C-alpha cells in the first residue's frame, strides 16, 4: 500500500493549477444553493462537499445526449461514426457511492460482447480522485449496500479532509503521477476510521425479491408515485437509453438519449401493445431491477445506497424505504407460511 501524502489547505490552489496544466480537471462548485461539477477555474474558490450532492457523475461518462454518428440529410446513406475523445482528464471530488455507480456502468457497457467504445474511451481517459465522505446525510445508506463512506475501491486516488489540509493516497498506477507534485509531503498520519450508521434501509436478498413479483403490494406502493423520470435520471446506475436520428438544415446526427422505464412511452410499441401499462408495473420493474435483476445479470445489485432518488423525488416517496417495505412484507409472508397460516 502506498503511503499517505499530506497537502496543506494553503497549497490546494497551486496543486490543482499544477494538475490543470496537464489534465482537463473537473472539480465541484457550489453555486446558488447547489453543488455542480465544472472545469477547474483558478479564479473560483475551491471547496469539496463532505457528502452526497444532487448531481450524479453519470453525465460525465454517459451524457444525457451523446452523438454516435453524423450524416448528411440529402444523401440516402452517409452515416459516419463519431471519433471518441482522447484528451486525458481528472475528476476530483467523487464520493464512494458515485464511484460504485461508475463501476456498475462498467459492467453494463464494458463486460458485454459488444463493448461500448465511446464509454470505454471516456473511462480510459479519466483519472478518478475520490473523496471519502465526512458525514452521512439522512438518506445515505451505502453501508446497507455493501459499501462504506470511506471505501476507496474503484478510485485511482483517494483523499480525505484532515486538520490543516488533506491526506492523499494513490490506489492505482493511473493515480501515481498525480502525487509526484512537490506540494505533497509524505506523512504517517492516517485518516481516522469512523464507524458509520448501518441498518437504515435493510433489503432482502435478490432471490427473495424475485418471489415478490405477483404480490399485491405493488399497487399500494405505486398509488402516490406519478411515474415521472426524475429518480432514474438522478440515479448513478440507471443508464437506459434510446437511439434517435435528429436533422437540422441538412446536417443529421444519430444520438443516444437518456430514457426512463418509469415513463409511459418506454415500453409502448407500434400498434399500441404496451407491456407495462400500469404505474404499479413500472414501479415494480424499477424496484426489482435495482434489488434483483441487476444482481442476476451482473452479480451486483445496482443500488449504491446514495439516496439521491429521495433527494430529488417531488413527492418525497423514498425509494429505499419502498425496498425496505417490500422486505418487511416478505418477512411477514415468511412468518405466516412458517406458522402454517394461509397467505392473505
Amino acid at each position, binding site marked *: 500500500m502506498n503511503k499517505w501524502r499530506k497537502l496543506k489547505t494553503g497549497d490546494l490552489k497551486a496543486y490543482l493549477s499544477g494538475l490543470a496544466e496537464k489534465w482537463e480537471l473537473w472539480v465541484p462548485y457550489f453555486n446558488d444553493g447547489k453543488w455542480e461539477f465544472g472545469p477547474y477555474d483558478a479564479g473560483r474558490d475551491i471547496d469539496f462537499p463532505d457528502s452526497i450532492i444532487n448531481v450524479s457523475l453519470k453525465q460525465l461518462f454517459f451524457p444525457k445526449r451523446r452523438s454516435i454518428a453524423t450524416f448528411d440529410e440529402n444523401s440516402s446513406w452517409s452515416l459516419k461514426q463519431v471519433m471518441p475523445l482522447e484528451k486525458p482528464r481528472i475528476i476530483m471530488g467523487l464520493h464512494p457511492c458515485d464511484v460504485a455507480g461508475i463501476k456498475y456502468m462498467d459492467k453494463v457497457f464494458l463486460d458485454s460482447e459488444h463493448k461500448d467504445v465511446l464509454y470505454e474511451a471516456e473511462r480510459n481517459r479519466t483519472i478518478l480522485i475520490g473523496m471519502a465522505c465526512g458525514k452521512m446525510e439522512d438518506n445515505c445508506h451505502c453501508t446497507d449496500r455493501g459499501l462504506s463512506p470511506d471505501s476507496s475501491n474503484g478510485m485511482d486516488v483517494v483523499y480525505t479532509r484532515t486538520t490543516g489540509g488533506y491526506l492523499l493516497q494513490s490506489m492505482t498506477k493511473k493515480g501515481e503521477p498525480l502525487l509526484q507534485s512537490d506540494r505533497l509531503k509524505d506523512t504517517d498520519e492516517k485518516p481516522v476510521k469512523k464507524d458509520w450508521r448501518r441498518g437504515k434501509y435493510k433489503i432482502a436478498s435478490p432471490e427473495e425479491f424475485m418471489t415478490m413479483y405477483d404480490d399485491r403490494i405493488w399497487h399500494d406502493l405505486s398509488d402516490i408515485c406519478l411515474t415521472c423520470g426524475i429518480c432514474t435520471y438522478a440515479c448513478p446506475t440507471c443508464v437506459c437509453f434510446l437511439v434517435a436520428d435528429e436533422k437540422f438544415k441538412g*446536417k443529421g446526427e444519430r444520438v443516444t438519449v437518456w430514457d426512463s422505464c418509469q415513463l409511459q412511452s418506454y415500453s409502448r410499441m407500434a400498434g399500441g401493445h404496451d407491456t407495462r401499462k400500469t404505474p404499479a408495473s413500472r414501479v415494480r420493474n424499477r424496484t426489482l431491477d435495482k434489488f434483483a435483476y441487476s444482481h442476476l445479470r451482473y452479480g451486483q445489485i445496482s443500488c449504491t445506497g446514495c439516496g439521491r432518488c429521495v433527494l430529488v423525488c417531488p413527492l418525497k416517496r423514498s425509494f429505499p424505504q419502498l425496498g425496505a417495505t417490500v422486505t418487511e412484507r416478505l418477512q411477514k409472508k415468511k412468518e405466516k407460511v412458517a406458522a402454517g397460516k394461509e397467505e392473505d
Partner: protein
Amino acid sequence: MQIEKDPKILAILCKWCSYAGADLAGTSRFKYPANIRIVQVPCSGRVDPVMVFRAFVEGYDGVMVSGCHPGDCHYGTGNYHARRRLAVARRLLEFTGVHPDRMHFTWISAAEGKKFAEECAEFTEKLRNLSGTEKTLAREEIAT
C-alpha cells in the same frame, strides 16, 4: 436574387381565401418578395400554434398566418378559433423572447391580391431592419 440575406418567412395561408388571394397577387403581377414559403391549410382554424413554434425553432425569421375575414370562413367558425389560439400563441412567443414584429397574423380574402402583396412586402421590410438585433428562438447548429 440573393435569398440568403433576405429574411426567411413562412406564410400559412387558408386555402379558400388567403391562398386564393396570393394566387390573385401572382396572376395580376403584383410584386412581393420571393423569400416567402407558402404552406396551404384548409382553414386558419387548422393552424396549430405548434407549427408556429416549430417554424421559429427551425430558424425562420418571420411567420405569417392568414385566413378568411371573420364571418365568411368557408367552415363557419374556423377563424374565430384561430383568432384566440394565435393571440395566445403570440403572447407566449413574445414573452419568451420572439420580437413582436416577427409575427404577422392577418385576414386576407380571395379578392385582396393587392393587400397580400403589400402586407408581404411590409412584413419583409419590418424583418429586414430587425435581423441582427437578436436571434429568433435559436436552434444551435449541429456540431459536424
